[in-house]
């Protein structure tokens, strides 16, 4: 279905300095099609900055980030990366459908794509509701719907599950998993360590440094911990 030998994402020695602060210190990792990667770490660890660097909206100080053979930020990648920011980044004073329609238009998508995406995030029955009248979880789904337009091969989702109830979180992770199974590289950030269990692969970030890159099981095994919180603590102390 997809060639997993080929990396969609190659980050090497990525460093970001913003206003004299070193936010990211020499980050390196690769990602293949179909991987569901959890980017975990406390707030302020550089998760959003890393994601924004991949998207090309954050300047890279040194190092490289290649996405599908193009340098991060190159104009050929615009619209090829599905992005969901921490803020919902949709128009609160538009209806669900008007939001999706506008972004679909920018991406030159047919009408059918609007319907497909609305079904995918289960928003068809909300199409005429103003986003400002929706709950947090529903807004997240609108934002996810926009990110899914034109089926991008890479999805970058910044804390999509924050503040949502457990059932919604489970459903969203289910959606991410299904997307990964179709060959999409999905990178999801979270500061909730327990979400580690949902991912096939973990990247642990702290103070701009990648502390761990591996499967959730190997993290628990390596730190002889029973919970991800404890594993993370031991990882930091042993550092």
């Amino acid at each position, binding site marked *: 279905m997809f060639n997993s030998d080929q990396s969609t994402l190659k980050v090497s020695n990525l460093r970001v300095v*913003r206003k004299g602060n070193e936010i990211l210190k020499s980050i390196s990792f690769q990602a293949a099609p179909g991987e569901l990667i959890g980017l975990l770490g406390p707030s302020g660890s550089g998760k959003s900055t890393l994601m924004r660097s991949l998207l090309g909206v954050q300047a890279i100080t040194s190092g490289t980030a290649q996405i599908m053979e193009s340098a991060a930020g190159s104009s050929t990648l615009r619209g090829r990366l599905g*992005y969901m920011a921490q*803020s919902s980044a949709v128009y609160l004073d538009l209806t669900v459908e008007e939001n999706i329609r506008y972004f679909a238009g*920018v991406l030159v998508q047919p009408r059918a794509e609007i319907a497909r995406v609305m079904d995918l995030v289960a928003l068809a029955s909300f199409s005429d509701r103003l986003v400002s009248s929706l709950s947090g979880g529903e807004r997240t789904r609108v934002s996810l719907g926009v990110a899914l337009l034109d089926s991008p091969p890479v999805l970058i989702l910044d804390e999509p599950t924050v503040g949502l109830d457990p059932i919604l979180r489970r459903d969203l992770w289910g959606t991410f998993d299904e997307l990964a199974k179709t060959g999409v590289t999905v990178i999801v950030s979270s500061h909730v360590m327990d979400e580690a269990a949902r991912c096939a692969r973990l990247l642990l970030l702290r103070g701009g440094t990648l502390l761990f890159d591996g499967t959730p099981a190997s993290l628990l095994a390596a730190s002889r911990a029973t919970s991800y919180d404890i594993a993370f603590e031991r990882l930091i102390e042993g550092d």
Partner: protein
Amino acid sequence: MSLRRSLLTSRRILEQLRHDPRTLALLLLIPTALVGLLSWSLTNHPGSFDSIGPRLLGVFPLIVMFLVTSVITLRERSVGTLERLFTLPLTKADFVVGYAIAFGSLAIVQSVLVSVLSYTWYGLAHQGVPWRISLVALCAGLLGTAFGLALSAVAHTEFQAVQFMPAFILPQLLLCGLVIPVSQLPSVLRSVADVLPMTAAVRAIVPLQSNSYYVGQFAIMLAYIFVALVVGAATLRRVTK
């Protein structure tokens, strides 16, 4: 640049305003009501409204559009939609021109509404040509939009944007010839006033001037609109440093 993406953007902005009828009403009715109030207040001074009223038609759209545009673009920044758009194939020019088209069309509606009411209900007997007054109101609205877009690069919050309004508008209001004729200003201020966009808007309405005089005033306004739009597009940052 793609006109299609600009038009999509302006349609989206107009849809946003459609869902906010209060803002839309304020946008269209405030200038109309203010000119009406002025005509009423000058009832006992026959002829005064004929000279002051039309000049304000060039001032109100500038103020209103400046405020609305700067706040609505700042909101795009704070909500994150601007950043999202910058990860999509939308250029800065598409974005800025989209705003200019949306608010430009609102400025047309606004100017037609104000001029029609002025000439009928408010009893304006101006020696100028109505279409020129409407054209000035349109240019003034575009000026406000263009400057509002440029300002959103400087102001970081909606709170700051609102405070920029008096800093940007009031000096022009004092110097544009509404309070004191430009010719009676001290020479330094006169040379400043001569090149202010609001002065050009007021001058373009003054009746019985030569054609080249009007062309000159419109040229000043168009130059400001163009420069402010370019500055507005140039100061939008696709990439955070």
